[in-house]
């Protein structure tokens, strides 16, 4: 090999490349979440439908695209210890969720897949949860249903593709992501941390307590079950506009790029 080319090859071996992320682990996790244990050569009907809803580079990625802070940082920032409490400007609470407005937010986090749990049918979801999922009558059946069983009573996520009146949200690439779980069994399961530029409003929806969060994206995370203040690294992401609703035993969360009025109309139609 001529001298210059040999020198270039040697230089290449001495360069400071960015650290290679654990792609194998992340990709395997994404595939497991998609239920891809089945042979790719013979996808099930469910597996064939899924990429249309969650294509690898599109919606799937969008569901997946979550900005995640490092675990240590998350633990430090969000741990509800007195010293950190000083940085909280406002505090809002529902049974099942807390919302804090803080002066300082975590730094730019890493991109990680968002985990909604196992994909199931609506009927299967009802069987495996301690409640019957509420479906917005105004929208009809969801395009995809996911269940997570790690939280007491279970949690269901209903995904609706964008459509007129439900524009695509950057955080999820969905028209609506509707989450439901037993707020009475997991009183602090959802945590939200918002900057000063995010609007946070208390309101009532047919008498039920609710919180509307709009504007600058806020951080959203799940508290690890069994740990009152622990935050799992994988659960932290940025979220779009959100309506949190305390309906009886349930805590319902609607996320999307819609406005407050639209969110309230959808929430009112939950059956």
């Amino acid at each position, binding site marked *: 090999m001529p001298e210059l080319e040999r020198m270039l*090859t040697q230089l290449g071996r001495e360069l400071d*490349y960015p650290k290679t992320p654990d792609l194998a682990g992340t990709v395997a996790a994404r595939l497991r979440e998609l239920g891809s244990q089945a042979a790719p*050569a013979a996808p099930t009907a469910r597996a064939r439908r899924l990429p249309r809803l969650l294509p690898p580079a599109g919606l799937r990625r969008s569901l997946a695209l979550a900005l995640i802070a490092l675990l240590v940082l998350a633990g430090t920032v969000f741990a509800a210890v007195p010293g950190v409490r000083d940085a909280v400007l406002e505090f809002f609470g529902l049974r099942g969720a807390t919302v804090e407005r803080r002066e300082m937010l975590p730094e730019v986090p890493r991109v990680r897949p968002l985990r909604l749990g196992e994909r199931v049918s609506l009927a299967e979801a009802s069987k495996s949860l301690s409640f019957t999922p509420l479906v917005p009558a105004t929208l009809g059946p969801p395009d995809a249903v996911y269940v997570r069983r790690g939280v007491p009573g279970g949690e269901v996520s209903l995904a609706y593709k964008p459509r007129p009146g439900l524009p695509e949200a950057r955080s999820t690439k969905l028209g609506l992501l509707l989450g439901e779980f037993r707020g009475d069994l997991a009183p602090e399961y959802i945590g939200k941390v918002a900057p000063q530029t995010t609007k946070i409003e208390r309101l009532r929806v047919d008498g039920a307590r609710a919180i509307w969060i709009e504007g600058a994206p806020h951080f959203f995370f799940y508290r690890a079950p069994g740990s009152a203040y622990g935050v799992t690294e994988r659960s932290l992401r940025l979220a779009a506009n959100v309506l949190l609703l305390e309906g009886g035993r349930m805590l319902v969360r609607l996320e999307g790029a819609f406005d407050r009025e639209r969110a309230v109309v959808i929430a009112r139609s939950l059956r």
Partner: protein
Amino acid sequence: MEDRPLDESELVARAKRGQLDAYEEIVRRHQTIAFRTAWVITGSAAEAEEAAQDAFMKAHAALPRFRKDAPVRPWLLTIVANEARNRARAAGRRERLALRVAEERRPGGAVPSPEAALLDSEQREGLLVAVSRLSETDRRAIACRYFLELTEAETAAALGCARGTVKSRLSRALGRLREQMEVAGA
């Protein structure tokens, strides 16, 4: 119980049968070159990570169409490069590729292996400066072919051009580097 690493065609066969562990091993074997190739194309570690991740997802979906005995690396790199180029195009810009020598290779750092002696610090810095003066197109060609040690075909896939174009681009870039090195050495 297996006590030897599986060869790649066996891993592919298992992955085609739906064994996720086998596909995970394939990704593990190629993730560094895939990520670095995406990084050379996009100039951004974050974009490269997303591109490589999505590319491996697409490759998994395409496994049924992959011939069992075909080489895996060029196939994967083609998918990764496509994904990375699409992202760079969609973003409407590319980050300038920031090339630096690793800390331990810099003067004053530990000398970890005899290979380090192949380039003295002056040569290394001079060459890096010369490469950094190349156009983005030429720099990426040099980076793929020599820094990442991709084959000509892989470089063509990474850059989204014909092999002939790679040859002429490299020839032009090497010529410019020689000129610069001569000027610097004069």
